[in-house]
């Protein structure tokens, strides 16, 4: 034993005698994680969050969250001598006078965009592979919560500099708050401490942005990761992988090195983009005054679909009992997003109700093998994408010389028509892919080699696929539809007959698949 090993041993022993960490470490450092690139998407979100904490802390050293009026006398000449809020002036100060300030601001903002992109991409991975199924429903709900809070947190950060663009965003947020029937105006008054814009809003959202929401984020992310730890990571199906094991690499050293390295890569890529591409150039927007507006005012992309929904809403308004209800804001601004997020959060429960599957699942699905779920996902994505496109309708119209009215009508009709079409097409593609899998198992893969048989017939030689691949293509289960009785044993119509009928119908749609290769099929093929 060398001197160095002895010292290290002594230190480890000292810590272990006081904390008992050795047993815990031994168990957990050997914990196995499956390896797949799509399992790293959530890590991008986690690392972006850490980048946000670090860069955000830097920005608070100089940012002055106040709407106190100041006269700008800083380095940026085109704004020299203008009256503006201290929040805006200090953001200019960070951008032009603090060393590395502009880079930090851009890192912070790009990291926020990365954070939201990574959350969405991670969510799509979890959704399309069925990783939300029992026992992971709670973690799914926490994830949906993080997504929702991420949108709010991003919007508040975008609002803080009090530039012309962010002030416009706050104005729209105020309009959406006011659209809440009856209490909307009161809530808006409480939130802004009086009439818009007032002097209370920036300091308030600053506290929420840097204290409350990051705290909630930390707590939720911790629980999210602890649940992954406790429930163990899901894995893709493959030979040797079952519902009862995890095939992969131990946390230490393989995964720790990978994850640690990936953190620096994410930080590096974010910094690179922040160094070469401008984001939120607030000095060009100018200070916020309610009388001004810029053409093409947009929220960040994660709010863009909401903006798109509001933009496409037809002008509907009712007046009753001294109250105005702005349906054109209430429906796209609150009701539709409410339905979307509730549906997203409840999806695991809805699916398990439809399939009647209450078992635990640790093996992931290939999206094609669950056509209905994949098609619902495609439908939701199409809906959101059309809303997002409409959110940028003015920029699209301007850049491609199109009519903004036509884009809006395309969106209005498309958002109703295209999602069902996407559902049908996706489902058909999934079932076709299942048939292709079946072909592959039964007849092997096409080699492109044509052979002429002695009697003159041309055939293409098919090559049998490997047993591992065959296993992969046939290991998934295909459970049939639920058949729920409408009439009970005594021949009387059940009280829940309608619900059962609905459930059976949905279950049938869910069970629609191309039958996978059975033993019978293989026996038949051998006779040929």
């Amino acid at each position, binding site marked *: 034993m060398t001197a160095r090993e002895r010292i290290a041993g002594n230190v480890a022993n000292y810590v272990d005698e006081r904390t008992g960490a050795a047993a815990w470490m031994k168990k957990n450092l050997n914990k196995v994680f499956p390896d797949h690139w799509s399992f790293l998407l959530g890590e991008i979100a986690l690392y972006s969050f850490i980048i946000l904490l670090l860069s955000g802390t830097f920005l608070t050293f100089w940012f002055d969250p106040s709407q106190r009026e100041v006269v700008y006398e800083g380095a940026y000449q085109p704004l020299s001598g203008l009256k503006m809020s201290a929040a805006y002036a200090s953001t200019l100060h960070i*951008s032009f006078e603090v060393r590395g300030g502009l880079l930090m601001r*851009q890192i912070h903002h790009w990291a926020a965009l*990365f954070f939201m992109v990574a959350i969405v991409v991670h969510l799509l991975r979890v959704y399309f592979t069925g990783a939300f199924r029992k026992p992971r429903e709670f973690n799914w709900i926490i994830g949906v919560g993080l997504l929702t809070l991420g949108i709010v947190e991003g919007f508040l950060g975008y609002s803080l500099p009090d530039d012309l663009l962010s002030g416009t965003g706050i104005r729209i947020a105020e309009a959406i708050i006011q659209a809440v029937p009856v209490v909307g105006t009161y809530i808006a008054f409480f939130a802004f401490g009086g009439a818009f814009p007032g002097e209370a809003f920036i300091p308030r959202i600053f506290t929420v942005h840097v204290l409350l929401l990051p705290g909630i984020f930390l707590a939720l992310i911790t629980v999210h990761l602890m649940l992954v730890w406790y429930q163990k990571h899901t894995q893709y199906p493959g030979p040797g992988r079952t519902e009862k094991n995890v095939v992969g690499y131990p946390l230490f050293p393989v995964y720790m090195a*990978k994850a640690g390295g990936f953190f620096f890569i994410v930080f590096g890529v974010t910094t690179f983009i922040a160094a070469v591409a*401008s*984001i939120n150039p607030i000095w060009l927007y100018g200070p916020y005054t309610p009388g001004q507006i*810029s053409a093409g005012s947009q929220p960040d992309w994660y709010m863009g679909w909401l903006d798109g929904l509001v933009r496409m809403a037809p002008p509907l308004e009712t007046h009753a009992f001294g109250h105005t209800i702005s349906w054109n804001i209430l429906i796209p601004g609150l009701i539709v997003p409410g339905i979307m997020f509730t549906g997203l959060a409840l999806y695991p429960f809805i699916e398990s109700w439809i399939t009647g599957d209450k078992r635990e699942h640790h093996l992931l699905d290939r999206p094609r093998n669950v056509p209905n779920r994949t098609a619902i996902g495609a439908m939701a994505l199409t809906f959101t994408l059309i809303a997002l496109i409409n959110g940028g309708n003015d920029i699209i119209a301007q850049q491609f010389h199109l009519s903004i*009215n*036509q884009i809006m009508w395309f969106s209005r009709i498309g958002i109703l028509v295209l999602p069902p079409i996407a559902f049908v097409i996706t489902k058909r593609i999934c079932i076709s892919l299942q048939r292709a899998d079946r072909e592959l198992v039964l007849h092997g893969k096409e080699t492109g080699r044509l052979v002429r048989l002695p009697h003159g017939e041309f055939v293409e030689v098919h090559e049998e696929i490997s047993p591992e691949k065959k296993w992969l293509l046939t290991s998934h289960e295909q459970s049939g539809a639920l058949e729920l009785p409408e009439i009970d044993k005594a021949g009387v119509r059940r009280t829940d007959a309608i619900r059962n009928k609905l459930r059976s119908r949905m279950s049938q749609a869910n069970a629609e698949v191309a039958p996978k290769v059975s033993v019978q099929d293989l026996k038949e093929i051998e006779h040929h």
Partner: protein
Amino acid sequence: MKRLSKYRRHRAAAPLLLIIALLGIGTTFSVASATPNKSALALARSAIIEEGKQIFLKGCSSCHGLNAEGGAIAPSLIGVGAASVDFQVATGRMPMADMSTQAMRKAPVYSPQEVAALAAYVASLAPGPAIPGDELLNYERDGSVADGGELFRNNCAMCHNFAGQGGALTQGKYAPTVMGVDPVHIYEAMITGPQSMPVFSDKIITPEEKLSIIKWIKSAEAEPALGGASLGRVGPVTEGLLVWTLGIGILIGIAVWLAMKAR
């Protein structure tokens, strides 16, 4: 010369010489700064107008009418002034390439002389806004960038975007970018209100304020991309596009690579 030189010391010599010198300077000056008389000026002017009229008849009258009185597809040009003609023709908007939503800025069809002739002809029909002269357009001297920015955000940004990049209007119409536009044309646009643009008369925006706006536009034009690539200065749409393509593309590529190496 001897006879002449003996009067050199004569009492009258100095005043006489002075008178001769003054006469000489005066004559030279009057010859050098000679201007043609009024009737000659009017003659040249009517020649330009006549030239403009000929160009008008050939290139413009099929839509705007033989006497610029307008028609079913084009407005009357009586009283629009030289500034309007200069803006529309010198920026290539007129003659229109097609009759769709609005006239696009393109390479001008007519030479500066021809544009001047056309402007003179249209101005001769009825009084209207004149082309601002160089002395009036000294925005570097008379304008203020900060005021111009404030004026631009108050009056122009709602259509032309916060950085003058242009924006969409209804039914395929648009406010064009104000980047790379000649100061005289920016000024003319403000006083004539071409196409969907309102007129900003001198009562609404004073001439000095107009110069401030021009100075701000020129300053925004010259401003380097301070935070890296500007992404078109159109706001968060291009930022979102970048993060969804290049940004997450790089990271997913690296994730695939990381997961691949372990195999």
